[in-house]
């Protein structure tokens, strides 16, 4: 299997649920600690990601800024390209743009229109339109989206190409991403097993399209919780894990190497009795499969496993640690030294 040649990085995946000033402060802190990148989501009806990202851009100078992810049903793909190029200019070339179908969210919110009925076709079209506009290349006449191949930005691009990532989960979308995009951002509660499987799909898609898989990047949110007290760190992820075990697509669970019966018990408990009941059934095995949680030694060892599976950009996500400020310091110091330097 050809590995990605992208550099190994440590980043933070932030939330759009917190006040904008807190997000900006966290991004500044991440830059101060030496994190390589921060990724900002547009999940649900949180804050507008480009507004938040522009604020982060103004408050930082070095750290890369990932958009993870925006969907082409909320914004016309040409508008995504406009927003990305404007932001890239504002942050002097620090942007990584993630696009994805976001179908779970759109369906839950009643915002999935007819264009979302063929998500793979829509996403391939979106990637080609956005990537084409961001590179000043001939795009594609849209079938799903009203867009013409000759669509151009009306202003000069800050750099020749902004990398376009795809938020992908299943095999077809991952393979399409390998064929058309610059990288992939995986989502919630990935495991090293799923990372390995996903990279195989991406590489297969790249080869089928005549592309060299090593030129592609693979980044992912990783549920991280670090604390000098490993028990506290591990307890802190139980509820998050229970929620996502009941929510994520089956392929994310089946590739993890976790006990299927334990997974099923948690899923059933969340659906029938609620999150707290599910959290009570999270075993150490499930934590070890889907998270990097424990003291700095535990977390470093676990992140090494993700790296060996093919992950290049580790985006510490969600919990970070029971004491977030202390956890950021531990991640940037002890953990980073063992995994990323």
């Amino acid at each position, binding site marked *: 299997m050809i590995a990605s040649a992208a550099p190994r990085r440590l980043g933070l995946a932030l939330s759009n649920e917190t006040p904008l000033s807190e997000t900006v402060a966290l991004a500044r802190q991440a830059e101060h600690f030496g994190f390589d990148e921060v990724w900002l989501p547009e999940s649900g*009806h*949180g804050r*507008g990601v480009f507004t938040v990202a522009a*604020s982060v851009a103004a408050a930082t100078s070095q750290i890369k800024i990932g958009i993870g992810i925006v969907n082409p049903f909320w914004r016309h793909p040409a508008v995504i390209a406009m927003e990305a190029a*404007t932001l890239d200019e*504002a942050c002097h070339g620090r942007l990584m743009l993630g696009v994805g179908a976001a179908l779970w969210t759109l369906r839950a919110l009643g*915002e999935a229109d007819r264009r979302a009925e063929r998500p793979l076709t829509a996403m391939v079209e979106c990637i080609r339109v956005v990537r084409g506009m961001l590179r000043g290349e001939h795009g594609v006449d849209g079938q799903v989206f009203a867009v013409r191949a000759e669509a151009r930005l009306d202003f000069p691009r800050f750099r020749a190409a902004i990398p376009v990532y795809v938020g992908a989960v299943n095999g077809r979308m991952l393979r399409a991403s390998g064929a058309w995009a610059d990288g992939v951002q995986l989502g919630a509660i990935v495991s090293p097993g799923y990372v390995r499987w996903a990279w195989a799909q991406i590489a297969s898609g790249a080869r089928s399209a005549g592309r060299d898989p090593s030129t592609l990047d693979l980044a992912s949110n990783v549920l991280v919780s670090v604390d000098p007290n490993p028990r506290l760190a591990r307890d802190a992820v139980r509820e998050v894990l229970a929620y996502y075990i009941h929510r994520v697509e089956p392929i994310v669970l089946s590739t993890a190497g976790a006990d299927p019966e334990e997974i099923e018990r948690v899923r059933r408990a969340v659906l029938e009795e609620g999150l707290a009941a599910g959290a009570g059934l999270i075993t150490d095995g499930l934590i070890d499969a889907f998270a990097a949680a424990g003291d700095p030694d535990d977390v470093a060892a676990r992140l090494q496993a993700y790296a060996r599976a093919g992950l290049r950009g580790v985006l510490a996500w969600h919990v970070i640690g029971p004491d977030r400020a202390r956890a950021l310091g531990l991640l940037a110091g002890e953990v980073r030294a063992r995994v990323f330097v």
Partner: protein
Amino acid sequence: MSLSEAPPETSPAAPAPTHWGVWLHAVLPAAELADLAVAAESLGAAAILVADEGTDRDLFVTLAVLAQRTRRMLLFGAVTNPHSRHPVASAAAFASLAELAPGRIVAGFGAGGSRIFGPLGLAPRRPLSALVECVDVVDKLVRGQVVDHAGEFSTRGAALPWSPGALPIAIASRGPRGETFAAERADWILLAGRAIETVAGLVRRVRAAGGAARGRAPAIAWNANAAWTPSMVAELRAHFAYMAVDMPAAERAALGLDADRTARLRQLVHAHGPAAAGALIPDALLDRYAVSGDRHHVVARLAALRQQVQPELLVFDADDYSIAFLERAAGVAADAGVVALGSGG
């Protein structure tokens, strides 16, 4: 009250002072536009309006940068539309901006036109219906309400519980139905590209309709298309090339734009941009829709119009996007009796 009914020409209430602002297209990097906004603010401008057109730089990124650099002035999205972004996305973006610049963000909406939809390949079937629905949904969302909507767009259980609160809504709209909607719904009405002599009457009508519908009149931001240098006039012709394409055919014909000339205009606009099409704009159109001439003439005309129309905001199109232009605009505004922000007016 319908907009066809004529309200009295004078109002018993003392008119609000007229301030001035600048309408920017995002033709420069956001940081450079922010430099201009900071300069405009120091010269007494009360507002910057940022357009969302074509495939120019993005409105919300630009506004976010301006919000962080300026301190007092209002910042208008002027205007976005219900189609290029889902209205819930626009609501979230405006509410996020309001976190950055509390009390200074105005969420502006319009039905859209060829300058916006052409490059995006969009052709909305019911633009006014979409605008009405969009304004309603955005207003509810930023106020913190939970919204279910099915119409020109849909959403279910949408909510922005983190939104700082209600935002002033600005509407740019044309035609009797659109103007009535704006009068009854908007906090600000954006007027641009209007026949100059019709504006005072239109403003009286919309204020009266707003007062009847909500007990308060909308504020007026008026771009009188003032141009007092040759380069400003050339820029105006280019701008009117777009406007003429969207104008009702009868109005075009009355100004000397017959079907053939309009077809050539449209083709030039789409193939080579508005500057190339500017030469086709007849002088009659300029005379009707702009305040143009030498500086002395423009100042005198603006002073008279300010007294007739009494807009809360007189808006200038940015000419060459220089601080020197802003200084000239501030001078014209002052000489026309417009109040500078911070001057105590």
